[in-house]
């Protein structure tokens, strides 16, 4: 586990250092002293978001025993995003910044938990979760959350500025006007959540087995599932609260990492986390480069790029699953 963690951190550090060299000022190379703190901040925030979504994806896929599970597809991201927006709606500007940030995190977590509970309950049948039903229910929860989100925007268009960019928040992106309190609180939630998930990672190997087999190995599978789901929801909600729902990172990264390090969750979790962090840092760097090319008037939200990458990947996975099931018949 420690060796995987060290290796993954090293790979991420190399990629992140490369991303620090790419900026919106048009110059490629190590930035000057005045720009460096802002460049590092944006790379770290992007990495934090990617890492959290990928780690949550690993846990959802293991616990739900579904290769298509991902915070975005399960409706967790849209639920967290919706409640986070509601917090903005009701939050009093008189509140201190740390309380505002904490309230936003709490609301996002409630939204994530509510969505995952609905998806989990509606797709369970005789204590078994149907993989396709799970995704269908996730799609419906996403659609309902998305509609409520748009309804709030139409009713309160002034939230476009309050959220630090309504459109960016809707499709998922790195916000440029986050407070330090928001950033630190999200980092703390992700850090603590990740440590819990790392401690559970050995048992997560067993979670992928049937209940009988897991209990035979002495693992209290129900408790493990609830702790895993709740912690993964906290981790994903805490970043969705500051970025909006960035799609497919939690789907793509665990699968790519599984191909590289295998299926042992103790190695998979650090690898997917590092890959998620690197992927989003690179996506953000690309969006910064694109904004310099006069192709776009404003910076492209990274959610658009991850969607372009993740959509075809999702279809590939579906096709692969279908081919395998046909081959097994």
């Amino acid at each position: 586990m420690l060796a995987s963690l060290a290796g993954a951190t090293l790979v991420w550090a190399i990629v992140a250092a490369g991303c620090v060299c790419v900026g919106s000022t048009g110059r490629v190379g190590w930035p000057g002293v005045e720009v460096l703190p802002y460049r590092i901040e944006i790379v770290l925030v992007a990495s934090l978001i990617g890492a959290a979504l990928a780690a949550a994806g690993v846990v959802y896929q293991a616990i739900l025993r579904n290769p298509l599970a991902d915070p975005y597809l399960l409706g967790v991201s849209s639920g967290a995003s919706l409640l986070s927006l509601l917090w903005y709606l009701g939050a009093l500007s008189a509140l201190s910044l740390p309380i505002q940030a904490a309230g936003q995190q709490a609301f996002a977590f409630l939204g994530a938990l509510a969505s995952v509970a609905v998806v989990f309950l509606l797709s369970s049948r005789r204590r078994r979760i149907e993989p396709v039903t799970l995704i269908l229910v996730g799609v419906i929860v996403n659609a309902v959350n998305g509609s409520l989100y748009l309804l709030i925007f139409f009713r309160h268009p002034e939230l476009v500025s309050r959220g630090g960019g309504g459109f960016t928040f809707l499709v998922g992106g790195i916000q440029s006007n986050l407070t330090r309190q928001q950033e630190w609180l999200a980092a703390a939630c992700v850090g603590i959540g990740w440590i819990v998930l790392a401690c559970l990672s050995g048992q997560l190997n067993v979670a992928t087995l049937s209940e009988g087999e897991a209990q035979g190995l002495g693992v209290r599978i129900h408790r493990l599932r609830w702790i895993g789901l709740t912690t993964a929801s906290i981790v994903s909600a805490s970043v969705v609260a500051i970025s909006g729902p960035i799609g497919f990172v939690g789907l793509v990264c665990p699968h790519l990492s599984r191909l590289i390090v295998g299926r042992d969750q103790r190695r998979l979790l650090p690898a997917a986390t590092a890959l998620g962090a690197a992927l989003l840092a690179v996506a953000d760097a690309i969006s910064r480069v694109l904004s310099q090319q006069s192709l776009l008037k404003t910076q492209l939200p990274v959610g658009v790029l991850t969607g372009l990458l993740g959509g075809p990947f999702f279809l590939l996975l579906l096709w692969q699953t279908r081919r395998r099931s046909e081959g097994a018949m």
Partner: protein
Amino acid sequence: MSERSLCGNCSFSRRDRGIALRSCWICLATSLVIWSLLACGCDRTKPAAAAGGAHTVASLVPAATDLIMGMGASNHLVAVSNYDDDPQTTRLPRVGDYQTIDWEKLAQIRPTSIITFYGPGRAPAGFAQRADELKIRQVNLKLDRLQDVYDSIGVLGEICGEPQKAVAMAGKIRQRVEAIHKRVAGEPRVRAVLVVRESGADLAGRDTFLDDLLTEAGGVNAVTASRYVTLDREGLAALRPQVVLLLLPGEDEKSVRRVKTMWESIAAAGQDAKGCRVCPLTQTYIEQPGSHVADAAESFAQALHLPREPASQPSATAAGAR
């Protein structure tokens, strides 16, 4: 023999893993090449040096940029918004808009003031935090009414260190608007609507600077709702305006014709559509609360008070022609 996954339906053979690893390397190499090409094509121009001395301004509001240039203080502008398309601003770096702010560019440029356009109490807290760190004064403009435009000119003059130029400009605009008001004072007031988007269904209502300009130009807004509204076809027909002012800045002829046809058909369907005129106004400044508000008022006045000759007017509606 294929190795099965521990993860439910997900299964990959050793061959798959080999292919995937090779694909990963190919993807990585390809993205590095693409990235390098993109990086080579980057605009390497450094931000313009501040020529404005102690008063340097970054404007995230195109209308404010226009006001600053209009008063002759463009040498104080060091950065503009992503949506500024005036040819005079092409040399200036773009530092953001109402959605995103490029703090690293701002850290490099270090203007003394930054102009924003957030609603009251709606400025993101993180914005103020970063602006304070960089010691940039945040100036939040309000440009809802015509009086706000006059007030903003004063504020902009102050942050540019050019108060005399601001006073002169505000006086000049006020004089021209008052002259238009006096000229049309004897004319009957014309019931009009102000269409503000290409959809044709978005209208400027009361409590907007466009409504103020319409009033000064001798018109009365058929929309009684406050601010900006979007109506369906039925709602648009119920307004029964005498003049429809299509404010379509910079739109091409095809778009203008489409919106014009739409409004002509709405007017034709109305019971008292006789004499309803549809007037497209495509000047780039026409719906901007900037230095050309007096020109906009002049265009409104000319469109409202044309002699009514439906048979010879190309924009007359079918009903009007009958």
